[in-house]
């Protein structure tokens, strides 16, 4: 039953969130739900508050008002470095590959949060997902191409075995083919493992092609929230907020 | 374009010069000092003289660090240069005023050389280089011990003051003449184009360059000016102590000077005066505490500790550290 409306039983629940930098809030009264195994695309023009939303959820920015709960846990007061323990992985804008470390070291960082080495598990799975990385294990981050860095950043986030992936602009600077490949991979992961994804994307068409639901942010407020296929077909909305 | 706008914005934040002219303030200062020397006992006059000597160098450092953003830990060594120059001159010719002028000149040249290097260095590299100067330069007195007489140092031949003026009073006049002259010159310098260039380079080198300011030239000039002040202060210290030795110009002296200008509020000549007063007053207070406690270990070290604590606290209390002290009204930019 997909009505496109939040049911209030999601994995991630954002209620009345107001947040931003300093005194001037960027986000106003944002409500959002991401259910387990669902991909929600956050769409909107530059400066609409998409990145701010992700950064506030993962604790990089404080929330001025509102609630964020993840699997019933109130995330306010959870430190950034503990988010990953709760099952949230955030791939920041600009990819966030540690360019001074090797590919393998970057990936190892992904599951280093587990204290017991035995529980960390191997990285073979990740290398299977991204065969391009397997051949470059010992290359430094800054030697990689843009696409490889994106794969590495996503691979590293997946190595943490999260339940929710916050993904900021994965298509930035990538060739369309590569973007499609990465988005396809996300869809497979969702189907296979029940991974939930909150996807911020400029490339509206590709984002809606894999998302279950789309949320349109305009000037920091939710302007629309629809099933992805419906949103893609709504010409008025598209013209008003998405520019195509 | 945005850079240029930023630069103009920063300039707007600078205080417009107060209306009272420096000349009037300096004349007033001179009258007060001369009057004071007639009422103060000799030891207080000696302290007053020491404040004047310190004021010369803190005023120069204020221009360098406060207005131009260059950190020097080498000014103790520059003071030593001035002091030794005067000592060597006095022991040959015994003409005080030309000797002081020569001390300033020699120190200016040395400062120019360091400044040439400094203009190419930033942040910790400049601090490290000037620290090395402060630590290493005293050892020159041992390398050329025939001239400088190693750790013993040199005595400074001085004529007694003219007439029946007590030595301490005469010293106070001399030091404050130097200090007020220094401040007068600096005050007019920093009001003009030079001052604008100093601030422009400090705030944003790229913007300054785009606005046609010679960045390296301005930085070297700042160093030269502050070195001249340090040379004068060094010469005055030689007169005050009537001797010079490497032990009088340790690294600690440079650190004290830094503390003085930071506490005084970087970038203001009045702050340099406050710093100079503290440099004399705090050790004096500490010493009387130490004497009351009857502990030799406390002497000197109490002041050292106190200076350190104050320096750290001031830096931690001022949000933005040095920058906040420099631009008290500037709001910190938010990252977007």
């Amino acid at each position, binding site marked *: 039953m997909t009505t496109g409306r939040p049911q209030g039983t999601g994995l991630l629940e954002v209620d009345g969130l107001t947040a931003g930098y300093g005194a001037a809030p960027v986000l106003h009264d944002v409500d959002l739900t991401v259910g387990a195994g669902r991909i929600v695309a956050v769409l909107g023009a530059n400066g609409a508050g998409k990145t701010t939303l992700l950064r506030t959820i993962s604790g990089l920015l404080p929330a001025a008002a509102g609630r964020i709960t993840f699997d019933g846990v109130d995330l306010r007061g959870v430190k950034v470095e503990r988010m990953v323990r709760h099952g949230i992985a955030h791939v920041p804008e600009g990819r966030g590959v540690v360019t001074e470390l090797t590919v393998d070291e970057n990936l190892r960082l992904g599951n*280093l949060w587990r204290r017991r080495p035995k529980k960390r598990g191997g990285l073979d799975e990740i290398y299977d997902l991204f065969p391009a990385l397997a051949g470059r294990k010992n290359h430094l981050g800054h030697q990689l191409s843009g696409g490889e860095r994106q794969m590495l950043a996503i691979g590293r986030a997946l190595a943490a075995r999260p339940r929710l992936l916050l993904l900021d602009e994965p298509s930035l600077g990538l060739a369309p083919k590569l973007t499609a490949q990465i988005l396809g991979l996300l869809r497979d992961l969702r189907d296979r493992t029940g991974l939930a994804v909150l996807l911020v994307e400029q490339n509206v068409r590709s984002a809606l092609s894999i998302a279950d639901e789309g949320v349109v942010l305009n000037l920091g407020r939710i302007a629309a929230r629809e099933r992805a296929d419906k949103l893609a077909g709504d010409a008025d909305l598209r013209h008003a907020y998405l520019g195509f | 374009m945005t850079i240029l706008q930023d630069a103009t914005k920063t300039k707007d934040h600078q205080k417009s010069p107060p209306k009272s002219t420096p000349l009037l303030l300096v004349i007033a200062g001179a009258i007060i000092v001369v009057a004071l020397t007639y009422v103060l006992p000799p030891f207080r006059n000696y302290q007053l003289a020491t404040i004047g000597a310190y004021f010369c160098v803190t005023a120069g450092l204020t221009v360098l660090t406060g207005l131009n953003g260059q950190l020097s830990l080498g000014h103790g060594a520059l003071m030593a240069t001035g002091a030794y120059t005067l000592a060597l001159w006095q022991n040959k010719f015994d003409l005080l005023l030309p000797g002081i002028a020569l001390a300033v000149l020699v120190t200016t040249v040395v400062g120019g050389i360091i400044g040439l290097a400094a203009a190419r260095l930033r942040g910790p590299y400049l601090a490290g280089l000037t620290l090395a100067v402060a630590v290493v330069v005293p050892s020159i007195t041992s390398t050329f011990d025939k001239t400088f007489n190693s750790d013993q140092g040199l005595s400074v031949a001085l004529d007694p003051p003219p007439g029946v003026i007590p030595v301490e009073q005469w010293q106070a006049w001399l030091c404050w003449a130097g200090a007020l002259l220094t401040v007068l010159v600096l005050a007019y310098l920093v009001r003009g184009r030079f001052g604008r260039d100093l601030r422009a380079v400090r705030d944003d080198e790229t913007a300054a360059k785009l606005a046609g300011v010679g960045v390296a030239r301005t930085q070297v000039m700042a160093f030269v000016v502050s070195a001249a002040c340090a040379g004068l202060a060094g010469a005055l210290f030689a007169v005050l102590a009537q001797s010079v030795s490497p032990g009088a110009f340790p690294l600690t002296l440079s650190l004290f000077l830094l503390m003085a200008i930071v506490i005084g509020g970087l970038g203001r000549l009045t702050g340099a005066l406050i710093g100079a007063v503290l440099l004399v007053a705090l050790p004096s207070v500490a010493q009387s505490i130490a004497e009351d406690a009857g502990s030799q270990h406390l002497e000197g*070290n109490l002041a050292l500790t106190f200076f350190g604590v104050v320096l750290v606290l001031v830096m931690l209390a001022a949000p933005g550290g040095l920058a906040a002290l420099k631009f008290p009204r500037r709001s910190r930019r938010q990252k977007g």
Partner: protein
Amino acid sequence: MDRFLYLTFDGLSRGAVYAAFALALVLIWRAARIVNFAQGAMAVATAYAGYSVADATGSYWLGFLVAVTGGLVLGAVVERVVMRFVDHSSPLNGVVVALGLVLIIQGVLGMIYGDGYRPAPAPFSRDAFEIGGIAILSRYDLFVFAAVGAVVVLLTLLFTRTATGLRMRAAAFAPDVSRLLGVPVGGMLTLGWALAAAVGSLAGMLVLPTELGLHPNAMDLLFVSAFTAAVVGGLDSPVGAVVGGLVVGLLLAYVGGYLGATVAPMAVLVLLVVVLLGRPDGLFARAKARTA
């Protein structure tokens, strides 16, 4: 030739100490982008503690242990209590605060121990024994090589082979990203300061028996030499710090041996100036690229 050999080994022995001290500077620079100008004073403080314990118990090794552990603690305290609260928008802020710490430490040491020199005996003989008729190395030199060698090996293992080392490197290079990956960045910074201060304290203990003795200012020249070593090697490079340390050690030994001991400090200053001016931006280039 004998003299040259002697000076070479003497230089390498000193150089090993400078290398260790430079490594301490590099560790903090990499972790926090601060040149710890208080490193020398901190090392003096722990050396006083170490020799106090050694005097009281009669055991040099207990004192040595106290000095190094003391460094660990002092480094952590300095980071947690002071450096963490320094505004890092200008690199000068950290420098000035560190210099304030120098004043505090030297003042407190002077109040407790006085300003005189206190003897700092070596645990092994410093008389060179003869190899093939040439006196080149003392047992103490061998101890220095072994100690510094152990430090270098242990640090290398820590940073390249352990999870903590990987966390420390990641936290230093990319704090925000590391935080998102669950790395306790603040803790790694404290650990970095602690380790660096311990290494600095070790270097201080090693250098003292070869100097005039314990004194609140005893490490000023060591700091300058080690800073020069670190700059020669590039502040970002641990390998460079070790190489730079040996270079500075050899330079000091040759200049001191052939031109006179009082000239040696000048030689360090000249080397520092030449390196700084020879590569005015080269030394800074990587750091700039990184923070951009």
